[in-house]
């Protein structure tokens, strides 16, 4: 029995944000795309457990997150590359902000504990409500709220620390370079 076309369209429609979420979880585009594929296959095979009229996107996010979590536990050892590969994904330089600011943000985001990053992405970027995010992560609404708050605080700390760091050595270096007088 095939699902109505609207179901497959809804699944395809969710793909771009599923990818964005998967990349933020895994830090790697190829793995993220594999995760999305696996998610779609699982979803298709379990369409009877989807309740029509409920949020398809949230359902798919839940499947993806669970897949990632079980895979993550298996592969814990080789999960260290979230920085470089994320940079690869985002080759296009965003116009509206400075490069430094963007780099700073990405680095800080990668340093967050996984559950905080996940909560922040779901609520702050994917546009889910706290309730939906709690459903996706299988935890209490209050837990999501505190994870988001801690994520924001930590990011703010990391970003201001990093900009201070940026200034210190950089300024010194510049002073050395310019102060020493052309060779």
């Amino acid at each position: 029995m095939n699902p109505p076309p609207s179901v497959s369209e809804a699944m395809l429609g969710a793909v771009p944000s599923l990818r964005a979420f998967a990349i933020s979880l895994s830090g790697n585009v190829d793995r993220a795309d594999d995760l999305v594929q696996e998610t779609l296959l699982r979803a298709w095979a379990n369409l009877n457990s989807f309740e029509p009229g409920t949020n398809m996107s949230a359902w798919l996010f839940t499947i993806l997150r669970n897949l990632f979590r079980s895979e993550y536990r298996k592969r814990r050892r080789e999960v260290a590359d979230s920085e470089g590969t994320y940079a690869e994904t985002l080759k296009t330089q965003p116009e509206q902000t400075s490069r430094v600011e963007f780099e700073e943000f990405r680095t800080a985001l990668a340093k967050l504990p996984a559950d905080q990053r996940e909560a922040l992405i779901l609520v702050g970027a994917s546009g889910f409500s706290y309730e939906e995010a709690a459903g996706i992560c299988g935890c209490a609404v209050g837990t999501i709220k505190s994870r988001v708050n801690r994520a924001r605080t930590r990011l703010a700390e990391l970003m201001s620390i990093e900009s201070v760091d940026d200034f210190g050595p950089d300024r010194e270096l510049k002073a050395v370079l310019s102060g020493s007088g052309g060779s």
Partner: protein
Amino acid sequence: MNDNNKPSGPKGLMAEMMQGSAPHKQRKTSLNRETQVKIGKQLEITYNEVVSQGVPDRFVELIRRLEGGGVVDVPDDKGS
């Protein structure tokens, strides 16, 4: 007759302490707010960067094959 000093002493100290800490706190808060706006913006940019890539062909093909009832090779679980 140092009565005058009694209230004004501690009060002055209190005021000084509060003045001393209040602007500090305020500065910290507004810095945070600025950073929070920055974080929100960066989060959006980072996320939308991927979203704007749309749906890669492989997923369109995957769904079409599933719709057609075709067998889909799952790269997983095959051992290899």
